[in-house]
């Protein structure tokens, strides 16, 4: 098979990542799946990845999954506990199916978390008929130079805080999980909750008050 002469003009370049000639030497084809990895990933916008995924580039969508995997799992864990991974997995699959309908002028993150929230809520609804929500903090030490006693105290405090979060009504736990577990902004939180910004803010404030009250009550006991 004759080899192809490929000028550097048109070596695929994604978000500033120049794919090497080696990518293009695959059996002489011009096609090379883009490599969405490495230090330059943060230079590729969500929209660029969405466009790639829409055009059939599975690697682009996998990059989106990797980008939002952790915040999505944190959020879903706060809503549905051990069902979080299944909920997030279903959410990403559904998100892929809905990509064609995603508006180019919209923000991807709140759009995605709306889908994650729906999946997590569904699982929470099914679960709550069987058992109460149980959430856990990781047990391993995270700070090597801290003393064992300090770590134990930190873990206990986190466990106490998480127990209080788990006991909140779903409505308030959800707003806290979006804002603090997933790291969404107040605006994004409002979009996910489909409510005005002011409503989201007041719901967040109420959730924090409830949480503070629960912690104070525990101390006073």
């Amino acid at each position, binding site marked *: *098979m*004759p080899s*192809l*002469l*490929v*000028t550097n*003009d*048109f070596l*695929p*370049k*994604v*978000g500033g990542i120049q794919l090497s000639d080696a990518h293009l030497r695959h*059996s002489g*084809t*011009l*096609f090379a*799946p883009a490599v969405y990895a490495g230090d330059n990933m943060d230079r590729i*916008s969500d*929209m*660029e990845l969405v*466009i790639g995924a829409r*055009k*059939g*580039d*599975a*690697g*682009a*969508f*996998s990059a989106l*999954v*990797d980008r939002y*995997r952790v915040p999505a*799992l*944190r959020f*879903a864990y*706060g809503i549905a506990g051990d069902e*979080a*991974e299944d909920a*997030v*997995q279903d959410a*990403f*699959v559904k998100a*892929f199916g809905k990509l064609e309908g995603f508006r*180019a002028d919209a923000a991807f993150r709140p759009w995605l978390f709306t889908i994650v929230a729906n999946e997590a809520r569904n699982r929470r609804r099914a679960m709550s008929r069987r058992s109460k929500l149980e959430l856990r*903090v*990781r047990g391993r030490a*995270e700070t090597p130079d801290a003393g064992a006693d300090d770590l134990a105290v930190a*873990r206990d*405090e*986190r466990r106490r*805080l998480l127990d209080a*979060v788990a006991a909140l009504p779903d409505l308030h736990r959800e707003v806290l999980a979006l804002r*603090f*577990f*997933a*790291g969404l902004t107040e605006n994004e939180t409002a979009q996910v909750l489909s409510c005005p910004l002011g409503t989201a803010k007041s719901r967040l404030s109420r959730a*924090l008050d409830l*949480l*503070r009250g629960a*912690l104070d009550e525990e101390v006073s006991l």
Partner: protein
Amino acid sequence: MIDLEGALTDLAEHLDHPDGHELADTVRDRITANPRHADRCNRRVRALVAVAAAAVFLTTAVVTIGPARQAVADWLGIGGVEIRQGQPVPTGANPVPGSPGPKRPPNASASVDRAQTRVQFHIATARGAGRLLGVGVDRRVPGGLVVLTYDRFTLVELASYRDHLPPVEKTVDPKARIEHVTVNGQPGHWISGAHEVAYLDRSGNFKVDTVRRSGAVLIWEHDGVTFRIEGPVRLAEATRIATTIR
């Protein structure tokens, strides 16, 4: 008083949720296993599988497109692109040089200016039909070929050469539908269905490009430039975009 917001942010990093390291692979497996999603998802993956078939096509094309090409009765010419009914296209193969990949130069309009210095025709852009994300120039095609990537579609432009072999050949699956349409007062084709593009390189050989494959494409020529719009699934939308190009 406890910094509750700070404590919650810290707590997020210590939740005992699954790490989800396999999530991307699992999601990809589920998507590709779902026939509803498979076509879109597998386009690029299948392009790799299509390489062998494309190689066969390439050999055939180089042989048959030479002296015998005039004898092929069912070619449709449009500017710099020739279209013919051909063998079923290997899935995954797709149009012309120029991946529309998700690229975004810092300043798209500056990129158009730069691209203009590298091609032998006036680059027209779609005005008000979408956000221009990237501009690419492929100088393997005689006269140059420009790919303008917008958020919802891709516009490809190349010079037409009436007295030469068309620089681009499009092979259309026999099952694909070709409609003869009028675009901005000019004759054009709306091709919906599988098709594959080869292009004429500087040595005079056709090369198959398997960069991508579009479900539908609108092709027309105006003032010595051949235009192609990919991305819109409906002719009306593609035609509307075409009216904004100037």
